[in-house]
């Protein structure tokens, strides 16, 4: 399984990839997770890759090979849609965060992204993740709402997912995150 997570720096892509890594480890699969640190974290576009299966060589996902793109922001979902294989799954939060060229008025935030993504030969989940995360108790749990949606699309047992979350997320935040995960699973 090849998963690409795209987000805006600070949205919790790293934690999400670590939950997925834990999930694969618990399933006794070979797994690689590739992260981005440093300069790109400061509110920029960030990408992490998670791959698991029998044997994994490259830690990065090649274009056209992602089973899933998990995007925490709409524009970032569109940006990495080309990494999906045919019939792949795009799970995207419908949240809009304006990048600097849009804020400063140099460019426009494209207004037809969802419609245009719908035309692709993929399964598209356009999720109201921020609202669900707020319902769970914190907007910071948006990432785990989306993880819930991802769980729903796979054959991996639900308890494996919650186990991975319990083993990765700091204890103080666990309740909110498990709630967020459930809300994602049940959309």
């Amino acid at each position, binding site marked *: 399984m090849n998963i690409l997570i795209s987000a805006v720096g600070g949205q919790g892509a790293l934690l999400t990839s670590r939950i997925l*890594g834990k999930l694969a480890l618990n399933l006794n699969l070979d797994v690689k*997770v590739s992260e981005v640190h*440093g300069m790109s974290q400061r509110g920029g576009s960030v990408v992490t890759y998670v791959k698991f299966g029998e044997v994994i060589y490259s830690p990065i996902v090649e274009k056209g090979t992602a089973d899933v793109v998990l995007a925490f922001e709409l524009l970032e979902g569109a940006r990495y849609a080309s990494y999906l294989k045919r019939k792949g799954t795009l799970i995207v939060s419908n949240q809009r965060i304006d*990048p*600097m060229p849009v804020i*400063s008025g140099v*460019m426009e935030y494209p207004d*037809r992204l969802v419609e245009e993504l719908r035309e692709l030969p993929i399964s598209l989940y356009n999720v109201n993740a921020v609202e669900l995360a707020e319902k769970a108790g914190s*907007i910071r749990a948006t990432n785990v709402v989306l993880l819930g949606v991802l769980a729903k699309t796979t054959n991996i047992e639900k308890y494996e997912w919650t186990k991975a979350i319990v083993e990765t997320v700091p204890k103080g935040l666990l309740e909110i995150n498990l709630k967020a995960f459930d809300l994602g699973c049940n959309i």
Partner: protein
Amino acid sequence: MKKLMLGNEAVARGAYEYGITVATGYPGTPSTEIIENIVKYENINAEWSPNEKVALEVGIGASIAGARTIVSMKHVGLNVAMDPFMSISYPGVNAGLVVAVADDPGQHSSQNEQDTRYFGIAAKIPIVEPSDSEECKEFVGAALEISESFDTPVILRLSTRVSHSQSLVTIKEKQDIILKDYDENPNKYIVAPAVAKKRRVIAEDRLRRLEAFAETTALNKVEYKDKKIGIITSGVAYQYAKEVLPNASYLKLGLSYPLPENKIKEFVNSCEVVYVIEELEPIFEEKIKSWGLKIVGKDVIPTIGELNPEIIRKALLGRSIEGVSPSFSKELPIRPPILCPGCHHRGVFYVLKKLGLHVAGDIGCYTLAAFPPLSAMDTSICMGASIGMAFGFEKARGKDFAKKSVAVIGDSTFIHSGITGLIDVVYNKGNTTVIILDNSITGMTGHQENPATGYTLRGQTTTSIDFEALGRAIGIKRIKVVDAYDLSTLEQVLKEETLAEEPSLIITKRPCVLLKRAKMVNKALIVNEESCKGCRACLKIGCPSISFKDNKAQINKMLCVGCKLCSKICKFGAIIAIGDED
């Protein structure tokens, strides 16, 4: 037990398992997490050093004094450490000395793509090169063994994808390594010509012995499968190639310098076509071609940038994988990294821009002020360069130009390599105005302590450097400390200090807004829509919390930390704190 570990975390684990007891380094992406993870092992005496040169010198001392040692840095950090690095090659070591250097192909967070292998070759110091986290850990052990058997420091060459990828690691028990005796041996460690000339011969002989070792070591692994295609590779490029061609034959070079000539000749002669797939420079390729062997390398594999499976697939198989091809009616705007909401650098650069000053900048979060809309920095070349460069402006163009220029440098970068530049300005009678942006942390690499923060790597309180006293000791008479949020004072001070015909030091103080110990507690601001005239002046500071809708400013309450910088800039008093509505 198997654990999923970041490459850098696995290097730290390797340090622990193989008995390293001293670790030093300076933060730099992608190497930072080595030291951050090493500190978790209580028995390792670890530190953030002021810079890489000092880190390596402490490391060399520790090795001679008998402790297995690791020194960590990013590729350009090795430039700073080059003097001790070149100089320790001939004398060699006592206990094992590993220099972990992380290259950044693709320049994710760096000013260049220099290939550390050249530095090993220049210093005649061997290089081991892991391709995943398991090897990161095990190659620390291998490097220590080579170091002690051959009496040489060893480079552990990492790269962004090796350092920052997690893969499975087998956790082992810690080995019992006893502290060696202090090696009191002036005939080895005093590199005066009489000694160094003898050591030069020994180093050359060491290289011959290492070449012989390269032929037999398990670090260099031959995997014969289909012999139609043979691939010689190292590091993460091995993983990329395996993904594309799992059934080809491989010679994976875990010891990437010196190379095993016979082993390579045998491999090349056993395969029909041999590709050399190396990230960055054609170092293997040129050496192998010099032996008269026919191989394909940089004719098809790019030198520039990071490799990936797609590049290798196109180069070797002439095709790529067909996925989906989205097309969008509007161009997707880029999302560059930006200064955080509330960042105290923002106001400083807003004022610098307003005054139209030439800004010699430096390396840190604040380099982001070079980009729109702030666009308030002219140069950023290497760590610490700002001060010397601003003085260079003055040397070339005279005092009047100095009155229109400043050097801007962060606290950690100033300590790293800015101090000597400041001494030069004073000593050689310059007028340069230097601003130290003191946010009490090493920011860009993710919050590391430094000599200005008052804390050590282990979080113990310690003496923090006093920049004012330091400035006075150097001989600067004009020193001003300004609150970075106080824009009017800052503007006034800048006008005065740039005009002064002597060196000035301005220290802007405010802890990084992301620092837990300095957490901002202010509430998000709001826009009074009746007062907002839609002039867009607030957009000039490039704060991601502010955007425009229906020609009125609006503030994203999730992002805003209430620093009030925008409300200071708004001429109409339209941006206010909740509760201040009237």
